[in-house]
Structures are given as C-alpha cells and as structure tokens.
C-alpha cells in the first residue's frame, strides 16, 4: 500500500536504536525464543496509560535518542522514560504527558540527558503484525517489529487516527528520577551455595560499575571479582534478572533479550523493578547489591502495582 493512503508515522530519522516493543513474547521459550519487551516496563506503562491504551500496547522503545517522525495521522502521542528533549514542529514540549499531533507534524526526540530509554506511545498503539503472539523486536533472533530489526530510515509505523481522546499529564511527583546509581535487590537462588560465605560477603558489600558491554541481552559489570567453586554447570533455564558469574568473576545481569539457557553459575536474580532502573544506566554508573527474600519481593510487586493503579492522571 502507498504510504499516502495509510495513517501512521513516517520515520525521518530512526535514532541510534529504536525498537518496536509490546509487553513481550511469552510461552515460546520451548522453541528457544526469548521474551524481548520493554527494558523499563514502568515507563512503558505510563506511555500507554497517558494515551488511554491497554497497558501492553505496542510502543517505540527509543534508546539514547535521535528519533524524528513525521505524522501522517491526527492522533495523540506521549513520551515517557529517559529525559530526551521532545519537540513538536521545532517547539520544545513536556514529556510524561499526551500531546495532539496533526498530519505533517514533526516529532523529534533529542539525545538523552538522564537515563537512556524513552517510550513513545500513540493512541491505540502502533498496528504491527504479531509474531509468536507479540510485536516485540528481538534483533538477535530477527523476530518481531516490522522486519526483525531496529527501526530503519524509510520505515512506516501504521496506527489509527484518534482525535476524541482526552489529553493527560502524570503529576510531577510521580515521575521517576534517573540517577547514576542504582541499588539492586537480589533474590538469592540458583547456584548461590556454590559461592562461599566470603565470596558472598564480597559481592554484597562491593560497588560495581556498568560497562560499555551492556545491551538488551544483559549488563556486564566491573568491580570486585567473585568466584564460584565450580567453573560451569549443565546448561539450564535463565530467568529475567539472573546474575551470572563467568570465570573472570565479573557479574552479568541478564535482561529481556537474554538467551533462554546458559551454563554459568548464578547467584540469584535481581528484583524486576530494579532492573528497570539498571537498564536506564549508561556506562560508568554505580550499582550495588542488597539481599532480599522472595516473600518480600512478592509483597513489593503487589504494593507497587496497586499504588501505580491508584495514581490519577491530571487533565493536560
């Protein structure tokens, strides 16, 4: 179909790494497919809610910035997450609120000054065909999105017109701050018994730095070496947030695009709300680990969900 006859957004400049993401691909691990989905599900949630969408609707995850879109539809958009300067037709606009756009409008996202992942939602969500039940793009697998890869310069993002929905803003007090340090709560598990008391004490009392070898598969940290009393294990399933320790003793936190199985010893897994904060860090930021329990983690998940649902958006 000709672009002129379709409603949606034309990609003028794709940015460093912009990916089409919904909530993620589930129930496909038996094929070796990973989950994908937003690295910061909290910011993703707000982008959708500000557009009045179902909270798993398809958005753009804009890493580092540099995206320019041209609207070919009248609709509403919202940008949340990392601090990326948003401009509509050259005029600076506020993030964490919905905006009306008209055909011909230019939507520009500059480079992040705080955090590194922003989410751009559109009313009704982008209309992308699903693969294995999801639109989530996993570049390593060539699955999802428009063509299994990051957004390209000539891509077209279809969506429906929506001009009746109200415009909303998230109260400032509810917006997260993306700093340069993050506490990572850990649910101990997996091969934790293969790390003796001294190694565990070192791990939980040391500071680590994020490295440039970090991406959607995982974040590699640098700092105090920790050693397991085994080199490798029989390959086994890896869950989100697993803390893998290869032979060099430098931990890797596994994220959404991780391989589904692996053979390095693991200390346990990072609590998911903290992963969202980790994924907003670029190279050279500070992280440290703190033990928590599975029951505490579970309670926190419920509390934060209930709290988030209760937050009222204000009319913009």
């Amino acid at each position, binding site marked *: 179909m000709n672009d002129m006859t379709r409603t949606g957004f034309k990609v003028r400049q794709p940015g460093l790494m912009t990916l089409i993401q919904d909530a993620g691909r589930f129930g496909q691990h038996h*094929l070796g497919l990973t989950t994908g989905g937003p690295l910061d599900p909290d910011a993703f949630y707000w982008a959708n809610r500000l557009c009045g969408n179902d909270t798993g609707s398809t958005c753009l995850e804009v890493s580092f910035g540099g995206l320019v879109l041209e609207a070919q539809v009248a609709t509403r958009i919202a940008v949340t997450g990392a601090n990326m300067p948003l401009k509509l037709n050259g005029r600076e606009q506020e993030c964490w609120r919905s905006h009306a756009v008209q055909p011909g409008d230019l939507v520009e996202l500059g480079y992040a000054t705080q955090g590194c992942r922003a989410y751009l939602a559109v009313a009704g969500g982008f209309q992308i065909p699903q693969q*294995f039940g999801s639109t989530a793009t996993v570049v390593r697998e060539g699955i999802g999105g428009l063509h299994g890869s990051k957004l390209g310069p000539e891509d077209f993002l279809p969506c429906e017109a929506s001009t009746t929905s109200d415009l909303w803003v998230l109260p400032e007090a509810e917006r997260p701050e993306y700093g340069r340090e993050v506490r990572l709560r850990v649910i101990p598990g997996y091969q934790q018994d293969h790390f003796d008391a001294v190694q565990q004490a070192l791990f939980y009392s040391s500071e680590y730095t994020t490295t440039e070898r970090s991406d959607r598969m995982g974040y590699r940290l640098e700092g105090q070496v920790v050693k397991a009393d085994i080199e490798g294990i029989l390959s086994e*399933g890896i869950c*989100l*947030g697993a803390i893998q320790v290869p032979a060099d003793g430098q931990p890797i936190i596994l994220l959404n695009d991780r391989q589904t199985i692996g053979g390095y010893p693991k200390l346990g897994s990072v609590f998911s709300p903290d992963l969202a904060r980790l994924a907003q860090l670029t190279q050279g930021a500070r992280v440290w680990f703190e033990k928590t329990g599975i029951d505490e983690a579970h309670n926190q998940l419920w509390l934060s969900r209930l709290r988030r649902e209760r937050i009222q958006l204000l009319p913009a």
Partner: protein
Amino acid sequence: MRVEIAGESALIIYFGEHGQPGVAAAVARAASLLRDELGYRLIDLVPSYASLLVLYDPFRTDHLEVRHLIGKVLKRSEEATEQEAGRLVTLPVYYGEDAGYDLTSLAERVGLTPEEVVELHQQGEYRVYAMGFAPGFAYLGDVDERIACPRLATPRKRVPRGAVGIADRQTAIYPAVSPGGWNLIGRCPKRMFDPDAEPPSPVQVGDRVRFEAISRDEFFALGGSLDDE
C-alpha cells in the same frame, strides 16, 4: 529431585545428573504435566538437560503454591510408566567436504577416516536435551565418544544455515546463520526454525533424533543449498 528459587517469579527443578538414565525423559514429562497443572498461573517453562525452569505469574500465584503443585505433579509423574520416550524424528544430512568444512580435520583429530566419522554420527540415536542459543537450536546428545571433539579454538563468524556440528558429545543443526564454534560435518536441508510453519521447529525437548545420510543430489532435491547464507 530438588526445587530451588531462581528469581522473584521463577522456580527451578533439578532432576538429577545429566546422562543418568531417565532424566531427560523425566524433564520432558514434567514439562508437559506442569503445563496443564499450572494452567493460568504459568508464564513459561524452560526444559534443559536435567532441569526445568518454571516461570509463574506472581499476580496469580506464589512460590509456595507452585512448589506444592510441582510436588503433586512429580509424584504422579514418577508413578507413570516410562512409556513416553519421546517421538522419533529422522533428519536428512548431506555429509561431505563441500557441506561440512571440518569433516576432514575432525577425522584427523579423533584418528578416524571421514567415512568412519559419518558412519558413527548417523548410527546414533540422540535425545533433544534443550532448545536455546537461538530459536530452533536443538542440543542433541550424546554422540559416540570416538567422534567427540572440542569446539574450534576460533569460532566462525558465520556458520551457514543447516550446518550440522559436533561440540564435545553434543551435536546440533544451526537453524540460521550465526557465529559458532562447533565442528561442521554436514548440512541438513530441512529448516530447523521457520516462523511461518506449524510447528515452527521439527523437534522439541524430549524427542529422539536419528540422522540419515543423503547424497548431494538428494540434498538439493530436498531444497538444500550450499550457499553460505
């Protein structure tokens, strides 16, 4: 059998040691029983060698209930007979220098002729221990000790689709072009991962696999290609 916490909404079941008789079958059986038993509480399952990772929805259940259900199912599974030994899938392979770049060097390293390597590879019946690394990548084992061979010192940047490789006592078919360090001995013309097919992959964890040697002509007739893509 032992159940450990893996993460905030994940438990992992360990079934024993790899290679122990019945372990691979027990993993596959538990996966299928738990899929039904956990139902709406389940997010996903990852069976692998001697373990099963159970990912559950923390807003619909908790680790205590999942542990309880795992215990219940495994008790039932132990009582079941060993009859479900997995489906038998036969995969065609063209073994040859132009299809398996490492066939000659592997033969030299293990002190056999290329013909003997091929013979031993296709004599075996293998078990699908795990799917991972990439979509449709099935870890098969165990290959005959006489043709077991460590990975290449320098992995290839591009292994072609369909390449059949050996690494230690494992063998596998690369479902798509990817980097890889396995010793390549042939090519399979059958697609190991096709997003548009149902099922997308011809094998699943727990299945048994045999390889059947085919000629170069048969390989092409079955849609095989020797291009590096």
